[in-house]
């Protein structure tokens, strides 16, 4: 079943890899290069899942997550956070703010694909 996945990350190469992986799974992929653009895109396209980076220009991942959870239309959208700052405090902060999953960079592509499938299945 095709799902719409929004990738919000400022690292072009990461985005390329994620885009490839999601597309290969048969999903529709949307991309945003910073927090602000990502939030706008999310409101526009109503993705089924959002892959969210933390360290980004303009609006960081935590701020985007808060905004998503505050938006009634997007509050239920599962969010998977990806971050290069693999510290426990940040992981906890992400989960507290309502992220469904949290994965540190560098990540295993297989784990990532499995996790996304899991989240999408739970949602369905």
């Amino acid at each position, binding site marked *: 079943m095709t799902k719409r996945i929004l990738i919000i990350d*400022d690292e072009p*190469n990461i985005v390329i*890899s994620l885009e490839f*992986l999601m597309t290969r799974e048969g999903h529709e992929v949307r991309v945003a290069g910073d927090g602000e653009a990502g939030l706008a895109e999310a409101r526009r396209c109503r993705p089924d899942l959002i892959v969210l980076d933390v360290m980004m220009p303009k609006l960081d991942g935590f701020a985007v997550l808060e905004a998503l959870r505050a938006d009634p239309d997007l509050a239920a959208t599962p969010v998977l956070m990806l971050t290069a700052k693999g510290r426990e405090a940040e992981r906890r902060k992400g989960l507290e703010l309502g992220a469904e999953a949290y994965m540190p960079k560098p990540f295993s592509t297989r784990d990532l694909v499995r996790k996304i499938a899991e989240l999408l299945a739970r949602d369905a």
Partner: protein
Amino acid sequence: MIGNALIIGLAFAYLGLLFGVAYWADRRADQGRSVIAHPTIYALSLAVYCTAWTFYGSVGRAAASGLDFLTIYLGPTLMALLWGSLLVKMVRVSKAERITSIADFIGSRYGKSQVLGGLVTVIAVVGVVPYIALQLKAIAWSFQILHHYPEVRMPGDGDQPLWGDTAFVIALLLAAFTILFGTRQLDASERHEGLVAAIAVESLVKLVAFLVAGVYITYRLLNLEGVAPPPSLPPLSPDIPPLLDWLAISGLAALAVMLLPRQFQVAVVENGDVRHVRRAIWLFPLYLFLINLFVLPIAVAGLVVFPDGDVDADTFMLTLPIAFEQPWLALLVFVGGLSAATGMVIVETIALSTMVSNDLILPLLLRRARGRSPPADLGRRLLAIRRGAIVAILLLGYLYYRFAGEAYALVSIGLISFVAVAQFAPAVIGGLYWRGGTREGALAGLSAGFLVWVYTLLLPSFAKSAWLPVAFMESGPGGLDLLAPLALFGVVGWNEITHGLFWSLTANIVAFVAVSALREPNAVEAAQARLFVDVERRAALKRATLWRGSAEVAELRALAERFLGVERTQAAFGRFAQARGIADPAALPADGETVDFAETLLSGAVGGASARVMVASVTDEEAIGLDEVLSILDEASQIRAYSRELERKSLALEAATAELREANRRLTELDRMKDDFMSSVTHELRTPLASIRAFSEILHDDPDLPLEQRRRFLGILVSETERLSRLVSQVLDLAKIESGHVDWRTEVVSLQAVIDQALAATGRLVAERGIEVRQDVPAAPALVWADRDRLVQVLVNLLSNAAKFAPPAAGRVGIRLVAAGPGWRLCVSDNGPGIPEADRGLVFEKFRQSASGGKPLGTGLGLPISRQIVEHLGGRLWVAGGTGKGATLCFELPAHRPAQAERGSDYDQTHPDHR
């Protein structure tokens, strides 16, 4: 005719009465029921001031010069007004210090000085013995005049044999009386109860005699008939003596009433209760008033009755009753005169003998026994000395009377004597109110005053007695008129007493103050000054702290027993122990307080100065220098200093705490920065790693990927790996620079060469992005002292940044090199988006790149490293120019002076990196 037997019998009966009174009073005192502990008795005893000189002489003086005689009583009356403070203070000090005489008082005040006490004694003896002679003369005269009753005849030159000379007999009797009642015990500071009682009786007797005679003579004067008054009556003449003389003589008498040895004796030493002074303040002046009430009438009567002038006015008191044929009245007056004379002689002799024994002879004995404990029988020996002194003083007085006879030197001695004792005033009064007086000052003052007194008063009186050439008086020694004894420094027109008083006291005060000012009082003087000046606050004073040394209580007691006897010593030590809360006197600690007590106890017997010497002989006193006193004072200031130090330290501690807090804050900040840096480094490492892992796994898991995609992904892998290695090397580079582990190879570098090298290194990037590079560089080599490779690294960084930010295809990068003051400035500009004002400081922070450029193109460490390098080379790196026109980054380095280059290679090797 009044028979000799009657006169002698009466005199003896009167003296017997005195003995009786004295004996009775002593017995009462022994039984603990003192008869003299009464303010009226005290005031009456002060009337010992009125001697035969008053009794007979006042009338004579009034007959000769009118109201002049009043000055002698005006002064004391005024002085009595000050007794509430001055006399009370003297009494308090003397009680506390067990002062025995005026010599002891002065000696004690100036550091318990024996020399000073001795000098005072000498002055007192020289000044007062003639005065005693005058009393003896008065007695002898009155005896002779009475003897010729009813004939009024002036006594002739006494050619009587020694045993027939009444004065001599009287002198011996008085000596016996004085020895009996004045030296019953050695403690001269204890009151002589019998003596004082006898003196009080004498004062009453002479007052009654004078008043009775006065009333009778006045009555007769008013009822005289048929006698024409003499043409001139000096007592009634309005001729008032010059004001200056009045003031001078009143002042003189005021001083004398305090300082005459006998006055000091009755007013201070014999004082039983300080409160008695209060009654004396009004009762004593009243006494003086009464005794002078009839002086003028008697003088007038005398001049009227004896108009021929062949009767000495000094004898009117006696000759008038004789003229009026009143034998009993004449006898009464005789007894009155006798009482006035004997009272003075007894008290004066006691005072002088105490001074002579304690302040003159004892110090000499002690000096001979220097360092050793005084001989065991010194107490008894001292009593013998005192008795001997009494006899000697009276004999001296008698001899002076016999020798001087009618001479001016004897007749005029009253006031001259006063001036001698007035010399004590600066030392006594100054000592009570001024702390600065020193022993040398007092010695100098007394000596100067005494010498001037001898020169201006004593020697002229000798000259007037024809014992010295009269010419001596008229011109000074060697004909120096300026030094004429009666007109010193050309002062003429003054009464000779006024003149002598003025000069002697002036010399005295000037010497006292000037010499005292030469040095600060030493420890002992300062301690004594405190006791004398601050006697009112005595309770708060602790002298004991000034005593250092070791002592045996038993030895102190043994010493005291020699002078005071076992019984009295035991009692005194018992009281002292009790006062300190110790039951057994033997258990007294041998501390400063006990030694002080023993010394004070002994002072009562031998005087302060001798007591000090004797106590010192049985104790091991460590000399107390001024520095020790100061050290005691210092302790207090040390404590203050210590607390100040503590305060300072706690302030320093506070400061240190603040510093620590600040350091801690900075450490925390640094720690946070380190964490941030680590976090940033981690982030920067993880990001390319994430890409590398993702694409590796994709390539691994998807062997069927189209070739083009596979190549693209492999390209990403390569560039991310490059990024990773660049990052790692830059982090290491930065760490090395920051920790100072870089090997700086500094040398003279031409900036043109650096530019060329940097352009070569960035040539590919510039060419790829199609960027035009413009150079504005002077031809002359711009030399700097730098590490060539590092400088190339900086410029490469700046150029690649510029190339990255400049728009592709239309990009332009400018290099501009100019001289700037003492150095060279190199700027690299681009036509990219520029750096916003707010970010200009941030670009030099690690991993911070201007956000405006979109996704950062570098590692974020290039500019921080560049800045570190430039600053290390003694220059600076900054963002210049505004936005819009692109970014301009400049650095400046100090120019290398050719002069430095010429110094050679040695210099180059040792040249510091920093400049």
